[in-house]
């Protein structure tokens, strides 16, 4: 099972994308949308929060990649996935 990719890449990638989409949306929220959310710019805040989560996951993956044990030959293919 050593060739399995890292789940941090999946979470990091998807949340970074979600973060960008929702943050951009939050920047252009109409007053009626902000009113609906009781005056909280929730798209902006949640967008930024998801962006941070996504980037932290990617950073963690970068700083602490899968340990190269057991099957070192296949390890490089592993990290790319």
């Amino acid at each position, binding site marked *: *099972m050593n060739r399995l990719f890292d789940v941090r890449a999946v979470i990091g990638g998807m949340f970074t994308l979600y973060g960008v989409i929702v943050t951009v949306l939050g920047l252009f929220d109409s007053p009626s949308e902000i009113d609906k959310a009781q005056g909280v710019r929730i798209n902006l805040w949640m967008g930024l929060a998801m962006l941070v989560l996504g980037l932290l996951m990617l950073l963690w993956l970068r700083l602490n990649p899968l340990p190269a044990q057991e099957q070192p030959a296949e390890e490089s293919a592993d990290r790319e996935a």
Partner: protein
Amino acid sequence: MSGLRLDVNFVDYLILAIYFITVLGVGFMARRAIRNSSDFFLSGRSMPAWVTGLAFVSANLGALEIIGMAANGAQYGLMTLHYYWVGAVPAMVFLGIVMMPFYYGSKVRSVPEFLRRRFNRPTHVFNAVSFAVAQVLIAGVNLYALALILQALLGWPLWLSIVIGAAIVLIYITLGGLSSAIYNEVLQFFVILAGLIPITVIGLVKVGGWNGLVEKVQASKIGDAALHTFSNTANTDNPLGANWIGIIFGLGFVLSFGYWTTNFAEVQRALSAKDMSAARRTPIIGAFPKLLIPVVTVIPGLIALVTVQGLGAGEGDLTYNNAIPLLMRDLLPNGVLGVAVTGLVASFMAGMAANVSGFNTVFTYDIWQSYIRKDRPDGYYLRVGRIATVVGVVIGIGTAFIAAGFDNIMNYIQALFSLFNAPLFATFIVGMFWKRMSAWAGFWSLLLGFLASLTLYLGYLGDVFTFNSDLEESFWGAGAAFVTAVVVAVVVSLFTPSKPESELRGLVYGLAGSSTSGETIVAADKVWWRNPVLLGAIAVILAVVLYIPFW
């Protein structure tokens, strides 16, 4: 139904679509790492503890759970916290500290397999078949519930949601097996939280913060009782209608230990961990998020109680079960709304995928390989596992359509199969700690314990026995099952021969053998923050401390 319809737009659908694509992508990528049946069914026992721990809690965080706990929050108030702090955390910690060495150390591939080695084949068949049937039916129930909610929120026809939900789960599990399920569960965990947090935040702003919520709840129809957990539990004069004995022993001990420690759909996550220490930490790591999940389920329930006029209707849009969907409709703008819809969809798929991945493993290893086609090459069983997944999902779809024809069938199926858990826990705990317990004692304690709770349940349905509530019945049913199973285990053991000790190595306390006493445990425990006992103690202490402000 149109009253619950959400005002979703392109961006919301884009967010949902990205999620579907990611989930399928995980399936395709996980497939490349599968070379044998152990990779498919147990992720090759290679997962780090934080991944299995989050998957462990996520497998339980199905949408029925989220929607149900928010509904309970609105109906019973903070007493719903018992389902988390009494009814989950202690059992999760017990599983990690006490039971996991037996499960993981004996290298069994499933919970039924443990029963086969500890007891005998009849015990094994009884448990494997009942588990497999239950998982498929419950997967269908999850699917039907998903379809109902998507019909209400997005206006999708029932059949469309059932087919799409089933197809996605089918594809990613058939391709990637348990790894795919576990990775997606970890992803789902974050998506579910990202969907629920905005509801809590905006809801609290709307009611004027925590103090505003307290004042408004005191003025609501449950009143101040909704803000307490243990006061007035000397009698049953409280929102839940249960006394502290029922809560601690019925919910906290028998029901919860039965569910968390013997349910293979949960235990399987820990069996996929990379070593003994990671396996033991799996449920304990899961316990920490479990402590805090009520913030995004029970509190929204209370917010819905005080902000949604007329919540608590017997039928229609304003039932307690719609607490979360109603708040989504009222409070979330497009964008986070898409994330919340995705979170709900994700949680249904998490529940269903846990059922399906538990089913295919038990079906392949415990039914097909044990009794129908033995001694084939490994690749054969890998194929069987994939076919079992397809068949399981197709039967699940069938169940979903049947469930659509009956109002309350979902509740009955869930309740019926919870009947298996309480006696199972009793059989396990006696069998793990008493080496004298005989093979046939395992079978009879399981069967008669199940029949005891079934009798109470059917008697309750048929008005032969009366209880204050479904909940009270479940406490007593579980209690009866547990006591019966223990008594039968002891009595039958006295009259039948016990198994030789050589066959019980690694399966019974005191006969651990080399597998559980290996250096792995000690080595991993050198770092204090990886010590299961310490982490478990912290989780239980937190559960007690968290009660203090809500006594």
